[in-house]
């Protein structure tokens, strides 16, 4: 297990370096100058030049890449061009919304998908299976921003059960959770549909494995075989999907955060792109890529936890 982990850490480091290069290269070619964006249409060229100097935009590409990367290693992501405060601080603040949102959405996803997937697999071909699977098809097909719009219309504007968006802050945890409820549902619905289908087919696959027959021959009921043996083996594809989904939820909330005007990472980066706050964009994208790579790493370790066959192998 340890050797396996060490080997993965090595390739992890390489991935991260390549990712940082790709990100930096891509983002630096974006047309548009942060200084002239900030100074607007009446600014004089010398003012813009002064601001560029102040922001450190006149340094060479290589120097800027190096200072960005070495800064990140010591936890210093630089200073936002527009907000003029440390990028790490701003991202830290936003993470307090995006991370809980992703976690709640993931929790909801799992909470919905597991029972539904298990039900559909055990009652394969039944009326319940068909209707649940039909519902998941709808869940996958629905554009989540549209679904979010409809939810705002119904629950916030017409019924007024929830506020239409915004985030009251974690000082009031209950209100905060309430504010994250609708966005989390909008995010979770399609993901839960996908996961339920994966769960179902993974379970059906494992249920048709030879060892399930062995278990049945031992005297286990169908249910016991499912809970004790099939479920854990079905976790491998399910874990893969959960890993993908977590990273998707972290980054994919851009649109949902806009619909509910949540001050999360997604909206931060969206706004930063339009304001050409390049350092911010680079850092957020890198953070997200980092998160994906780390989640994959965690999923790999989780495989080894689920599947002893992977433990011995280095």
């Amino acid at each position: 297990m340890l050797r396996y982990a060490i080997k993965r850490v090595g390739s992890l480091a390489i991935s991260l370096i390549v990712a940082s290069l790709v990100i930096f290269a891509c983002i630096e070619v974006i047309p548009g100058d942060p200084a002239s964006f900030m100074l607007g249409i009446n600014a004089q060229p010398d003012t813009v030049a002064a601001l560029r100097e102040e922001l450190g935009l006149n340094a060479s590409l290589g120097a800027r890449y190096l200072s960005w990367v070495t800064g990140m290693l010591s936890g210093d992501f630089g200073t936002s061009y527009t907000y003029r405060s440390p990028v790490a601080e701003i991202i830290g603040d936003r993470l307090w919304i995006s991370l809980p949102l992703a976690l709640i959405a993931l929790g909801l996803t799992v909470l919905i998908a597991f029972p539904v997937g298990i039900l559909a697999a055990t009652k394969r071909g039944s009326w319940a299976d068909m209707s649940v699977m039909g519902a998941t098809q709808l869940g996958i097909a629905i554009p989540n921003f549209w679904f979010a719009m409809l939810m705002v219309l119904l629950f916030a504007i017409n019924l007024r059960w929830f506020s239409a968006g915004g985030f009251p802050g974690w000082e009031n945890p209950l209100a905060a959770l309430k504010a994250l409820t609708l966005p989390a549902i909008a995010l979770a619905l399609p993901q839960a549909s996908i996961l339920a289908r994966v769960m179902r087919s993974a379970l059906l696959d494992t249920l048709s494995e030879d060892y399930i027959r062995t278990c049945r021959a031992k005297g286990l009921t169908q249910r016991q075989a499912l809970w004790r043996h099939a479920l854990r083996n079905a976790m491998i594809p399910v874990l893969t999907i959960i890993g993908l989904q977590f990273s998707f939820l972290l980054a994919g909330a851009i649109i949902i955060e806009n619909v509910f005007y949540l001050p999360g990472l997604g909206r931060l980066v969206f706004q930063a792109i339009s304001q050409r706050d390049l350092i911010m964009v680079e850092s957020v994208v890198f953070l997200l890529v980092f998160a994906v790579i780390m989640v994959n790493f965690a999923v790999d370790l989780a495989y080894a936890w689920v599947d002893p066959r992977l433990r011995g192998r280095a």
Partner: protein
Amino acid sequence: KTDVTIGLQLEPPHLDPTSAAAGAIDQVLYSNVFEGLMRFASDGSVINGLAEEWDISEDGKTYTFKLHGGVKFHDGTDLDSADVKFSLDRARAEDSVNAQKALFANIARVEAVDPLTVKVTLTAPQGNFLFNMAWGDAVIVAPESIDDIKIKPIGTGAFKFDDWKQGDSITLVKNASYWGDAAKLDKATFKFISEPTAAFGAMMAEDVDAFYSYPAPENLAQFEADPRFTVLAGNTEGETILAMNNKQAPFDNKLVREAVSHAIDRQAIIDGAMFGYGTPIGSHFAPHNPAYIDLTGNSDYDPEKAKALLAEAGMADGFKTTLKLPPPSYARRGGEIIAAQLRAVGIETEISNLEWAQWLEQAFRGKDFGLTIVSHTEPMDIGIYARPDYYFQYDNADLQKLMADFDVEADGAKRTEMLQQAQTIISEDYVNAYLFQLALTTVVNAKLQGIWADAPTQAIDLTAVSWSE
């Protein structure tokens, strides 16, 4: 109830009004937190701010400002003439990053005569110097607090900056030791909601008490019909124009520009894009300004005439050009309508929707556009037509001379006359197609009073705002 939550579409990038163009900074801070020597009143007139009185020398070149006594910054330090000198010198310095540096270009010297007296010497007489001093970019800041101003603004206003939840809201609280009339509110929160749908939801769910410059005019009828809300429809300084690239063929031909102007149905654009909010204009001038003259007749909607003009210009079959649109809905929606109207006279436009940064890069700085729509929200900005390198590249020596004379003219009547002359010149030269004066539509809770209906500058002055019960 003594607190208020105000919705704003854009969040300030940082909190220093003297080093960025973003209107959102002024909206939150102007006259609430920061004050200048002069200030704009709700009707757009310029009144005294921190200056108790002022005096102009005979030759019009020296302004002596006498400051109010006992004014304190929010950090407890006194406001004195040194702060004024610091602020003005900083704004006009070599390495200044003031977005409106031109406002200060004419200043030759600033002297602190005594703690409450400042003498400003100009290189030449300037008719609108006091007006310039009322801008948000000319507010008085203190050297003690300048380092942190972008995240912790310290001013002299009736409200103190309290907290900024980046991406979400800014909170101001009442300044108990304000030198003037104390604010009626104890606390004001500005909440940033960029999506129009979200703005609608927030207003309807009463998450916010007012939404300044409400971004979706299509919803206003609903708010008007709802007794919970009032819709304030006021003036802005935003002349919305269909800018034409005067140096690019075929717009270098006046006939073509005239044709475009006649091809456009302003009322359809106001109805279609702004749901009826907006005043048609025929030149680059705000209708609420006393010097305004109605020149819409020069470019009335007449597609037949437009076609004839095109034929005369040798383009009977029309032509193709680009139409670059920045993000606001007046541009995006207006652009679609204009494209349809131009198509009707044979002009095909290729629309590209741009972000502001791209628009600045391509259209504004790169001058790579045929047509573009933009609203010029700075007050009294007809002077841009005297800048041949300005993005629409209008180069007319007569107008340039006129504006130069206007700058040094101090006599009110003559100034008005000169302004009207300028309006006529650009209107008759069809420099751009003038669409409408942007309306300021603010949705407020019916019980909330004192919110400015007009926007002589980008400000939400809360000093007089209160709840009716």
